[in-house]
């Protein structure tokens, strides 16, 4: 082949050529040298760990050499073992010079970021003094504990309950609670978390990914490894997303359908419409497994002459409502109870002693009539033909298909409706509990490491809002933003102490600037974490936490997997400087705050026996039921697992999968009667409700207006420093531009923005909350959306860069821009549901 060689290049080549003959000599030599020993070689330990670079706790092995963690590997004793890149970057987080090293006390104003080093003794005594004060005043509930990545699991909850506060509140209202949980929970009668279902990716023929990118979010054990197996098996996928989720749908047989932000519900309703129209549903399944045949009054939607009984659950002693309902029997040609019918009618209208009745399924079919693919196209921008094509593949492939049940839902005000519609599609197709469809997650239950403590008497903040304030679908333990609602309204009482164990409640919750203002009413804010974050800036006392390889931990059994799993976690290396684990801090506080006899009763044995005692207590008596579940095996192999299962637990009134939810009906009626304007969010029939932004913008965004959407990168997780301030991950972020904000080429052109520009991003409702970001102009994002990977930059807190040297200089965090608003009825943070503006710098 002829190529032009420039003079300069020629000279260079000539120079190289001068030495080249020796290559030939080298070629003939046989290598005598043996390779050096691999780094694993010699004197290392391999310690069972559970990774905490994100919240999922995938079982892993830490490789230790000379007292240092040199790398992480997947635990090989699992059939679906695997850990992701975040996990593998653990050593870079562990030995990061930005780690918090000593307890710190605030100097100057909150938010100024001035701190001084204090001793652990001083820090603990200062905290204990305030805790003693509120306990002595008889107001222990004023103390709120916010756990996340907690390093005191198994000890913290009993301590705070014993102390007297019921306010242990997780971050789940900023994640999946309760739009996902109750939207899907309607069908099963109880809230269904993302950890309640598993998609049988390996056996599915076709799947729709909406609100989950299993490779971007990447909870490896076990969703990630199952998903990968599905890919190797050649399953087909369609992703409905505001951006091209390259992690999930690159390659053959996979497709991206870009969707307008916040309109997924309309897409699912159109799918249901098509499935019903083409009679593509699983008729036998609906008849047998669901309450589709239930006869209801078409006006009131109430079941016709049901038999309602109350049973007492022998285990929980709780009363449980049971509904036995009537159907039209096509064989006997009359109304009978379902358990007496030979062939209950699925559809139709019946006249029974002068009353018009329809089946619940008939009501659903009627409600779906208006949600045609053409209707959905106008809202979602997904072409009607594409929606029909997806419906077609679902119908043909059923039951070995799925619409992924998703995870992080709390993005928009209408998500409960969205997940309700999603659940309807899966129910129509009959994919629940089927091979190749959607399974339920089996669990082993372990004991606590401490003796059982009495429950506190005071009312939990979230329960107050659930019972009194129009949020019947709150999951009470998951509602940290209601702490701020309590600060704002004073109801039911003002919290006075916030103790955040790993929670970044400011950076991770919608409406950060508003939350900060409310903190003035709080007497003491304690943040315990290994790295500085937004919340630490406002803390009075910062406690340096360990990273996970630096401590022993309670056994864990809540995994998102298809088989029950228990996993061990043992200390691999020593913590740096004065970092201490939360379990030690909780014990110290317990000693200082509780009465000596209380301490002895509940913590005494643990304080003497340590985790060895705790682990044995957790496993006591379980081996009989679960052969092989012993501490010896866990110490050796790190994990125990049982049999795979597809079963989904149902707690509905009818005991069936309720395609027509009686619980939704009950709550909807009650809210309506109370005149609650947002009652329709609990409507038992399929219903489209637009997101907040849609109403605000009247369905049309202006030229410089966007909806800022986020998604997880497999190389970043939450707003914790372990991933967003990681020197090794930063290297790759820089290579592929993880910190960039994606913008559609047409929109960029109109605004005069070019690829690589730095822009200012801010919300319409708060033009002072400005963050800077680098732009990626790409056709991989919907025109109405700005897309950014979650929590990759300092956002409106540029001062964080002082403490986090390996964080990108620019980048946005949607929570900083959002409002202190709540999704109707369920209390989610609806963080993306605000209008965002972009301007050139």
């Amino acid at each position, binding site marked *: 082949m002829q190529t032009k060689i420039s003079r300069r290049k020629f000279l260079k080549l000539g120079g*190289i050529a001068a030495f080249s003959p020796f290559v030939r000599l080298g070629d003939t030599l046989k290598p005598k040298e043996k390779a050096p020993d691999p780094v694993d070689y010699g004197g290392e330990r391999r310690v069972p760990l559970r990774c905490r670079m994100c919240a999922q706790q995938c079982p892993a092995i830490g490789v230790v050499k000379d007292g240092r963690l040199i790398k992480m590997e997947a635990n090989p004793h699992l059939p679906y073992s695997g850990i992701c890149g975040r996990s593998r970057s653990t050593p870079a987080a562990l030995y990061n010079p930005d780690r918090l090293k000593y307890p710190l006390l605030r100097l100057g104003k909150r938010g100024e970021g001035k701190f001084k080093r204090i001793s652990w003794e001083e820090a603990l005594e200062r905290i204990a003094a305030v805790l003693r004060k509120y306990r002595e005043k008889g107001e222990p509930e004023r103390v709120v504990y916010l756990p996340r990545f907690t390093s005191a699991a198994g000890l913290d909850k009993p301590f705070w309950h014993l102390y007297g506060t019921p306010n242990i509140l997780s971050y789940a209202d900023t994640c999946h609670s309760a739009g996902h949980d109750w939207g899907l929970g309607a069908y099963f009668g109880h809230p269904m978390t993302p950890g309640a279902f598993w998609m049988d990716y390996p056996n599915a023929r076709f799947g729709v990914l909406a609100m989950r990118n299993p490779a971007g979010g990447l909870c490896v054990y076990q969703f990630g490894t199952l998903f990968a197996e599905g890919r190797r098996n050649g399953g087909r996928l369609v992703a409905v997303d505001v951006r091209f989720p390259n992690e999930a749908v690159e390659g*053959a047989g996979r497709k991206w359908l870009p969707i307008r932000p916040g309109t997924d519900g309309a897409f699912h309703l159109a799918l249901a419409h098509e499935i019903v129209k083409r009679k593509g549903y699983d008729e036998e399944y609906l008849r047998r497994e669901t309450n589709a045949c239930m006869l209801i009054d078409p006006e009131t939607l109430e079941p016709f002459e049901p038999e309602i009984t109350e049973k007492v659950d022998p285990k929980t002693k709780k009363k449980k409502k049971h509904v036995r309902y009537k159907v039209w029997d096509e064989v006997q040609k009359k109304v009978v109870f379902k358990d007496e019918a030979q062939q209950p009618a699925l559809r139709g209208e019946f006249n029974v002693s002068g009353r018009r009745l329809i089946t619940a399924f008939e009501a659903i079919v009627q409600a779906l009539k208006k949600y045609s693919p053409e209707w959905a196209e106008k809202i979602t921008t997904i072409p009607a033909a594409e929606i029909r094509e997806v419906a077609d593949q679902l119908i043909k492939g059923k039951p070995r298909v799925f619409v992924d049940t998703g995870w992080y839902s709390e993005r928009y005000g209408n998500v409960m409706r969205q997940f309700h519609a999603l659940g309807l599609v899966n129910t129509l197709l009959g994919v629940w509990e089927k091979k190749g469809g959607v399974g339920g997650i089996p669990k082993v239950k372990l004991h606590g490491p401490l003796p059982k403590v009495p429950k506190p008497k005071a009312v939990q903040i979230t329960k107050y809002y659930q019972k009194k304030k129009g949020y019947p679908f709150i999951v009470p333990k998951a509602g940290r933003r209601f702490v701020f609602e309590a600060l704002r309204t004073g109801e039911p009482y003002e919290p006075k102490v916030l103790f955040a164990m790993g929670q970044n409640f400011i950076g991770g919750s919608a409406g950060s600037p508003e939350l900060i203002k409310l903190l003035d009413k709080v007497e003491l804010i304690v943040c315990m974490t290994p790295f500085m974050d937004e919340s630490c800036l406002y803390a009075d006392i910062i406690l340096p936490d360990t990273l996970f390889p630096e401590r022993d931990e309670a056994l864990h059994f809540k995994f998102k997997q298809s088989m029950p799993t228990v996993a061990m976690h043992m200390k691999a290396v020593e913590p740096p400087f004065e970092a201490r684990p939360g379990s030690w801090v909780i014990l110290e506080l317990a000693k200082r705050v509780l009465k000596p006899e209380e301490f002895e009763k509940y913590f005494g044995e643990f304080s003497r026996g340590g985790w060895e005692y705790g682990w044995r207590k957790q496993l006591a008596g379980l081996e009989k039921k679960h052969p092989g579940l012993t501490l010896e095996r866990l110490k050796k192999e790190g994990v125990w697992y049982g049999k795979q299962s597809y079963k989904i637990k149902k707690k509905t009134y009818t005991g069936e999968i309720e395609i027509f939810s009686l619980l939704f009906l009950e709550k909807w009626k009650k809210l309506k009667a109370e005149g609650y304007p947002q009652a329709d969010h609990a409507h038992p029939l399929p219903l489209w409700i637009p997101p907040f932004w849609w109403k605000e913008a009247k369905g049309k965004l202006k030229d410089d207006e966007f909806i800022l959407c986020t998604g997880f990168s497999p*190389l970043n997780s939450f707003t914790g420093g372990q991933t967003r301030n990681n020197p090794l991950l930063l290297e790759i972020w820089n290579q592929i531009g993880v910190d960039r904000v994606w913008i559609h080429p047409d929109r960029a052109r109109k605004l005069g923005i070019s690829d690589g520009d730095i822009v200012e991003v801010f919300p319409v409702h708060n033009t002072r909350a400005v963050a800077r970001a680098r732009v990626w102009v790409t056709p991989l994002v919907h025109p109405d959306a700005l897309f950014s990977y979650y929590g990759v930059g300092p956002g409106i807190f540029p001062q964080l860069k002082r403490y986090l040297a390996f964080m990108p200089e620019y980048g946005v965090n949607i929570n900083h821009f959002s409002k202190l608003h709540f999704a109707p009825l369920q209390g989610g943070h609806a963080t993306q549901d605000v209008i965002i503006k972009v301007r050139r710098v």
Partner: protein
Amino acid sequence: MKVSMLYDMQACVRCYACSVQCGIENRARLSRDGKGTSEKVLEQQRPELRFIFPVLRYIGPYPGRSISYVHHCMHCENAPCARRCPAAAIEVKPYGPVVIHEERCIGCRACLEACPYDVPRFNPRLGKTYKCFMCYDRLEAGLPPACVEACLAKALYFGSREEVLFEAQRRAENYEKRLGEKFTVYGSEPVGEATGALHWVTVGPAAVLEKYTLRPDAAQKPIEALDAVRTIGWVLFGAGAAGIIGHFLYSLGKEVEE
């Protein structure tokens, strides 16, 4: 026996755990070789030490699609880089991998010129060039390469040449059967004269492999021209001794500089 690697683009979930693990493994090697404590080596930005890394491309117009892949050494049978290296720093192991020895590298960047896949990375501060050596220290100890161990999707696969080619073929056939699209096993046969077959083969949709990612022009890189120049060089400089002394002095000078 020859060994080989497989990258399956269709199975890959683009989590880049391979790249992270490569970076971790190589940093652990630095501390093993006395080039810094295990803490210190982790702080430095050394992107050239991740021998496998993501490259993101996309095609438009809207709605576009991205075509990303992991960039890595192909471990060519004929290894142009090794033939090109004047310092004999690049060695083709009898079992296949093409290994670069940092201590012998003189930083002349001849391998960058020679490589049709744009693989070697030069660090100007250290005056050395880096590239994948297929974890030959791990291989000789009976461990798989670090990236293969890291791959949760089993998109990276390691084994004897025969095993790897069998697995690649099996996967390609399964994808073709399930998805009705043509798949290619790239590198199982010689790609071009310069490279020969590859010890790192790739399974992917034929359309993607041809148009967007792997370089079909790799076979056409002017390696033949380089070969001709090299022959001229041989004639020009004639005596090998001059070259040996020249190289010795040059590399000596380099070491002092460091």
